[in-house]
């Protein structure tokens, strides 16, 4: 009995039911729409999870929660185009190509990192496979509906499929150095793609022959080739972990040869060197604000990367790739003002509409526009100020973070077998190898 009461209480706390939507009216705020200018003393009305009105003097019925945001700043919910939070598994590092696996199968709604991201205004993130393999697994775009119990309720249903590719040191280290198989060099990495694409093409042809009755025996079903075929068909956006200019150019050339156009580079620390080429291809670039020098392929980096890319016409975004940075992406975006002097609107586009474009969800989120989803972050000061403190974070019109109702312990599912409380040393240090989770164990002999 007590259990039931407790469960009900929990549900009330987090207001969590399947794809729950809500009604919220935000009053008297500075409303930064990102795409359509900034309005002073304006209101935003969210009805049934969608933005219904933006303007002055909006009123709403009693079933709508009203937030007085006088003196505060409202912006679109922040979008992180590269993260690994809310995942039980990140790398299936057993093969240079694992296109068949999908991190959407390993969503963890109980990861407290989701709440911490919400407390930084982040409402959507791109939960990615790691970078152990040249062709990694498929990724999942999730909404931060922290409080839901079923992993499926994190999904942003309808978001385009995406897949992780990886160039350079990580796949070379895992497969070449770790196992003695191709790729051990950036030359080998290229061949993994060319081989996979070519085999998938043949595989499609075999199925065409079978389906048209030309052949009688069905080909051996192969989920890996199916997935790569879907890339060739344009059904999946490639998000490629990359650092060096040469390898970025390489993948663009490979894609050109196979007619692939949906391509976004991740990290892309040397993207600034090939910004004109990226712009000409139409490839996106999702970068760190200032991470560099933690390994050799990022030694020749610059924190001005985002600014150079943007000024050269590349659709650029700032990502976290980290459970730490995701908590203050608004601050990471502001660094483009120190390093490159971007305007407020440009800087904020890097964590809103631009990542939305890179994930193919810019028609639904990424700016405050009527008809878009009710994902909103409210800050005490301008979100690009170091002194800004997130006040509310709203997903689908449901308040998921409220600084005034914010108990310290936000864990949902507690494992009875775990110790009562665990202190982790070294959380102080950024884990630059987030991308390599689950992979290190595989190729480091005990």
């Amino acid at each position, binding site marked *: 009995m007590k259990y039931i009461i407790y469960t009900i209480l929990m549900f009330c706390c987090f207001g969590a039911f399947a794809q729950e939507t809500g009604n919220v009216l935000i009053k008297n705020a500075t409303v930064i729409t990102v795409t359509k200018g900034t309005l002073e003393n304006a209101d935003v009305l969210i009805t049934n999870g969608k933005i219904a009105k933006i303007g002055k003097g909006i009123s709403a019925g009693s079933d709508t929660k009203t937030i007085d945001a006088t003196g505060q700043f409202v912006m679109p919910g922040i979008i992180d185009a590269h993260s690994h939070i809310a995942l039980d598994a990140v790398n299936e590092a057993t093969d240079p190509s694992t296109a068949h696996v999908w991190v959407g199968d390993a969503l963890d709604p109980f990861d407290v990192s989701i709440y911490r991201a919400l407390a930084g205004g982040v409402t959507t993130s791109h939960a990615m496979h790691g970078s152990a393999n040249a062709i990694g697994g498929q990724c999942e775009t999730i909404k931060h509906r922290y409080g839901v119990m079923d992993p499926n309720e994190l999904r942003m249903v309808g978001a385009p499929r995406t897949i992780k590719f990886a160039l350079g040191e990580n796949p070379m280290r895992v497969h070449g150095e770790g196992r003695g198989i191709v790729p051990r060099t950036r030359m080998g990495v290229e061949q993994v793609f060319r081989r996979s694409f070519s085999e998938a093409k043949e595989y499609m042809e075999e199925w065409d022959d079978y389906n048209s009755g030309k052949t009688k025996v069905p080909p051996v079903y192969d989920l890996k080739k199916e997935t790569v075929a879907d890339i060739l068909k344009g059904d999946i956006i490639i998000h490629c972990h990359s650092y060096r200019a040469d390898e970025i150019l390489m993948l663009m050339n490979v894609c050109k040869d196979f007619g692939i156009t949906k391509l976004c580079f991740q990290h892309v620390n040397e993207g600034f060197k090939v910004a004109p080429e990226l712009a000409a291809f139409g490839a996106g670039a999702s970068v760190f604000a200032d991470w560099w*020098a933690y390994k050799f392929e990022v030694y020749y980096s610059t924190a001005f990367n985002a600014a150079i890319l943007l000024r050269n016409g590349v659709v650029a975004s700032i990502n976290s790739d980290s459970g*730490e940075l995701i908590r203050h992406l608004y*601050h990471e975006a502001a660094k483009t*003002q*120190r390093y490159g002097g971007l305007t407020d609107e440009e800087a904020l586009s890097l964590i809103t509409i631009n990542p939305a474009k890179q994930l193919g969800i810019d028609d639904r989120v990424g700016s405050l526009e009527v008809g878009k989803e009710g994902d909103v972050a409210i800050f005490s000061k301008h979100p690009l100020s*170091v002194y800004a403190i997130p006040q509310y974070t709203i997903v689908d019109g449901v308040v998921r973070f409220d600084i005034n109702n914010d108990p*310290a312990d936000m864990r949902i599912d507690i494992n009875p077998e775990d110790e009562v*409380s665990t202190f982790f040393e070294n959380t102080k240090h950024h884990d630059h190898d987030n991308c390599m989770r689950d992979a290190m164990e595989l190729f480091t002999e005990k």
Partner: protein
Amino acid sequence: MKIINIAFAFFCLISLNAQQIAKSTYGTFLLKGATVHTITKGDIQADVLIQDGMIKSVASGITAPANAEVIDVSGKHIYPGMIDAGTTLGLVEVSSISLTNDNNEIGDLTPHVEALTAINPSSVLIPVTRVSGVTTVIAKPAGGLFAGTASLISLVGYTPDQMYAGFKGVVLNFPSSGKRGRRDRRSDEDIKKDTEKAIKNLDKIWTQAEAYAAMNKDKSIADYNPEMEALKLVVNGERMLMVEVNKKDDILTAIKWLKGKDIKAVLTGVTEGYKIAKEIADSGLPVITGPMLAVPARAEAAYDASYTNPSIMLKAGVKVAIRSDDTENVRNLPFNAGFAAAYGMGVEEALKAVTIVPAEIFGVADKYGSIEEGKMASLFVSDGDPFETKTQILNLFINGWNVPIESRHTLLYDEFIERSPGLNKK
């Protein structure tokens, strides 16, 4: 030797191009017309005269000496150079390449290894750091129990001696009862046993060090024993012990351990200081904490535990300095302080925590940490609050050297913002 031909320096400035850093210049500089944030004496409208590496004068309407380079900084702001009280700068270049890591010597008992020995003055990371206004840092060794001897360095110079800023401390990684990481499968019981054993070991070493110090009080009579020789300085109170400790219970244990030992000590890290702020204040020990930009150390800790930690300790009466504990991104020290300021500390106190407070802790407040006559000229000019993300640092002086606002990052920007050739090679 410090005096350099101004004309030569000027020549160097002209000849700079991408991927090549201009030279620092030395001389007499008059910074005119800025708001001076002295830290210790309030914010004033004044000129600042830099001569012989020192702040010669802070006053309004200073007449420029004959040989002075006058820099008009009206409408701008002058701050003392920030001090990062804990970094690995100069010791680690590329962290994933172990052979470029000089911060972690083999052994549990290596208090005698000197960070200053291994500092690479030409590290590419140093210019990247200083152009953010961080002029002085602690470079500290890590690993083992007594990790080694940390040094305070100024971020200008071509030899460690030129960089040395007058403070050394021995790093003690106090035995931790926390988990090392996700793969640490030890039970609470195991950890408790390990910790008790480690503290026993520490006590043993300390007893030996005390005995050694007593035995060799006036001159060394014992056999060559560099470890004990290094600890002797700590036992005698000549050198500070920098005690890295983070978990609540461990902090309490460390305070107890330090009690009654007549030595100079500072607690560093102190992630969970907010839980026992009063106990720390009562101990009288100063604290160097950070980074603020860190994930809380427990799953059930508040999301902002790292942001609010310094302010809670400060309000309880603890002397708090802030560090980045970083290597390539020590430049984020002002942002760490900015978050601390936003989450309760206030800008004024946060500024102190990266200037005068660490200077006082390290006993170098006569030289660093504020803008006062007679102190070393380590300061910068900015177009605003240095914690504010968009603020630009315009001029930089370290120990009187006028350091160019250039680093690999700015040079790459200059080269690639409009690449030539661009998309098409003509």
